[in-house]
């Protein structure tokens, strides 16, 4: 496929007339098997090639994207993007495209994905459904596989090629009042251990049998890694040099300061062989970054145009690692008198950007513990929390677990978590 992408790239390069440009020619092949109520409800497969063309003409920008790959249409999108640029207003903040640069040779592809045939995907679903039926439960979820390739060049001489694979398995098991979920993704199908995932689902399911009603209050929580992932994924939205400098977030003027909690660190790495990383994009090439160290903000992802305008170094969060102390859940429970263990969070939204005040719900199982022991399951709750302030209440962290192909996060024990409402289930 690389040769085909190169041919398309050369065709575009031959016909463009811009002062500067970025071209991305990409390929994606995917298959998704969705299941619900112990049956397959959707099953989709296909591949496509796409092209992004961004151009600069006389400090004016224009762009076009297409998934219609014939020469006439490619010529048309070049023409349209350049016409858009010519008719556009000059951009006072414009930055030139990425210059020639070496980028990290990361391994985002694992050939094990070839084992995942249509039959194999259905077989995996069958195994999972049989497990659900043994519990008189209903299973819903998805198993997905995809491969992708991307060729990226700029008018300033950068040229990069990356390819990758991804397998996702997500399952929700439901019976009576019990509803619980596990979800993992990995670049390497061989490292997505299906039996372990089923076992985790079963353990979560078994723990939820005795449900008691509980009112909301402020109390300690142990967020399991999936919940930590959901919550801190919001950093991808709000942890940004530009919006901080603009005064839109709480991170304004906090670089170099201990603004976050002692037990919170955040990094992106190109050195972890299990983690996928995007080795380059139109901002810069990836490098390992210690964004936050023990609460001290070292750096923030910085868009290319903002970096250019303010003489900063551009950067992006190409993957996410929150280091942990390796403290077990049992040890965490002993550190506080009582609290909740939360499997997952969901529907997190920003209440107030300036405070990084978030709301969201618990989901997929909440357990009440007291004196170091889990007592029973409880209903779901709503929380409102200011993320920076909450990190200062982290009492302990576990061992980082790879939840997504590009993220590793630990469980966290957090004091005084602000619940503001409860559900009826």
């Amino acid at each position, binding site marked *: 496929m690389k040769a085909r992408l190169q041919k398309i790239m050369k065709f575009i390069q031959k016909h463009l007339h811009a002062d500067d440009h970025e071209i991305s020619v990409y390929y994606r092949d995917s298959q*998704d098997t969705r299941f*619900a*109520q*112990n*049956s*397959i*409800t*959707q*099953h*989709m*497969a*296909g591949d*496509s090639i*796409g092209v992004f063309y961004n151009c600069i003409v006389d400090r004016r*920008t224009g*762009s076009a*994207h*297409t*998934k*219609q*790959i014939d020469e006439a249409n490619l010529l048309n*999108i070049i023409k*349209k*993007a350049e016409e*858009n*640029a010519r*008719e*556009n*207003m000059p*951009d006072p903040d*414009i930055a030139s495209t990425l210059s020639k640069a070496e980028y990290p040779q990361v391994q985002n592809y694992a050939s094990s994905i070839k084992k995942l045939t*249509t*039959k194999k995907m*259905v077989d995996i679903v069958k195994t999972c*459904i049989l497990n659900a039926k043994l519990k008189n439960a209903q299973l*819903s*979820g*998805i198993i997905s596989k995809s491969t992708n390739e991307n060729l990226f060049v700029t008018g300033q001489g950068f040229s990069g090629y990356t390819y990758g694979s991804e397998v996702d398995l*997500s*399952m*929700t098991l*439901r019976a009576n009042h019990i509803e619980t979920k596990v979800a993992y993704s990995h670049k390497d199908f061989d490292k997505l251990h299906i039996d372990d995932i089923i076992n985790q689902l079963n353990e979560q399911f078994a723990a939820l049998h005795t449900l008691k009603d509980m009112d909301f209050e402020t109390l300690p929580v142990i967020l399991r890694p999936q919940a930590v992932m959901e919550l801190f994924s919001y950093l991808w939205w709000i942890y940004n040099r530009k919006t901080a400098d*603009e*005064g839109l977030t709480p991170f304004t003027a906090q670089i170099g300061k201990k603004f976050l909690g002692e037990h919170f660190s955040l990094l992106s790495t190109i050195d972890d062989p299990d983690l996928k990383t995007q080795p380059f994009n139109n901002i810069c090439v990836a490098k390992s970054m210690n964004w936050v160290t023990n609460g001290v903000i070292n750096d923030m992802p910085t868009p290319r145009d903002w970096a250019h305008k303010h003489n900063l170094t551009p950067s992006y969060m190409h993957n996410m690692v929150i280091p942990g102390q390796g403290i077990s859940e049992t040890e965490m429970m002993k550190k506080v008198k009582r609290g909740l263990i939360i499997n997952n969070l969901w529907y997190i939204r920003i*209440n*107030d950007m*300036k*405070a990084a*005040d978030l*709301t969201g*719900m618990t*989901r997929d199982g909440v357990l009440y513990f007291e004196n170091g022991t889990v007592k029973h399951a409880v209903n*779901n709750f*709503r929380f*409102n929390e200011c993320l920076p302030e909450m990190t200062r209440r982290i009492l302990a962290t576990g061992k980082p677990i790879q939840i997504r192909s590009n993220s590793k996060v630990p469980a966290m024990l957090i004091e005084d978590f602000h619940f*503001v*409402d*409860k*559900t009826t*289930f």
Partner: protein
Amino acid sequence: MKYLDIAIDYARKLGVDYADIRIQKSISEMIYLENVSFKANNLDTTHGYGIRVLKNGAWGFAHSNIFSEDAVKTTTKKAFDIAKQSARLRQGKGIRLASEKSYIDSYTTPIKKDPFTISTKEKTSLMLETSQTMLKYTPIIKTVIILTNHREEKLFASTIGTRLDICTSFVSPMIMAVAKNDTDTQSRSFNEGGHAVGWELIERLNLPRIADTVAQEAITKVNADTLDRENRTTLVLDPIHLGLTMHESVGHPTELDRVLGWEADMAGVSFATPEKLGNYQYASKIVNFVGDNTLAGGLATAGFDDDGVPGQRWFIIKDGVLNEYGTTRDTAPFIDLPYSRGCNRATQYFDQPINRIPNLYMLPGTQPLSPAELIRDTDSGVYIQGQGSFSIDQHRVNFQFGGDYFWEIKDGKLWRPLKKVLYRSCNPEFWNSVDAICDARYFKPFGVTNCGKGQPGQVGRMTHGASTARFRNIRVGGSK
């Protein structure tokens, strides 16, 4: 288009129980202006086809953007093979389709002025003028203006003989201003979503005039007070705000696929289960919600859905009682409904269609009542305009909403501006607390262009609408 016949003839030859092909070309223009810097001026074109095959009670779906006889046949065979594999895990009879007639028909969104014929220069000049209108106010530190124009061309054929030629369009302008004072930054937006009309909407709106109001209100908002303690009080909610609340708390819970548990792993399920049909008091008696895929200007108005079912109008909540769901040909038989309401839609050619919210709106009140009169009739409470934070549980019961612009109501008057207001409620408490709805003169649509659903995610479109309404005894407070 010969590829329609190739796919359908070949599907029949393979022995499918049902098949359809949807050739879809989507063209979208998005111009993004931040202060005086155009961050994006993009034209997006996707063109390809998706083939859906039902065999032995299971779906198979395959897509491609290679247009040749071989590619179409290969894609059809891929869908067929996938369906056969999926059928190994069929429960009972598996997927069945509600009966439907065949149609040979076409539909085009009525527009007066095609936005794609308007020059980029005219669009960017208007946007720049709009932005500069706001930037003249010193406290305004940031503006964002996004203009989206979209056209979708679909050719559809199925093995029951349906042939459709559909072209839909919409335009969507959005304006935002961020104001700053010594301690805070707050934004105010003009965002009524997408409208299935042409450039005439933009000409009618007068964006610079709107922007001037947006900027002034952003400044008012950043300097406003907050509500610290949560209290039960009255809410008066404007139509744009209600567009989001009805989307989340009425639209999604009444999608039949969610009710059936098909979205349990991702978007969740629904409390509005089938035994509640016809007897569940979802809302107060003055509340009526209508599903209407014939609504003029509606984003889900396309003549037919992606099952080839014509657009219809029906009551989802009638006199406050849960009446019916939004359904598709493959969901309706699971609750023994003999027909579909035509809610199956895919976003792009490479998406398998899923059960979507129709155009869904709350009928206006039947007695003459204006928002000003409604506020005059309210002793105390909060008036919320526009949309803010929104979050709801996976059963669609418990929710929390913010808003964009807030006034405290005291003695029938807008007493003082507020910011960071949040309210919490649940179904069925919230809609049962409605005690007044303004009349049809004040009805306003809100077009959702970004409804996320499905795995892999799809972005659906539909229009909501309401007149300003009053809700009693709701928990209202402020964020930190």
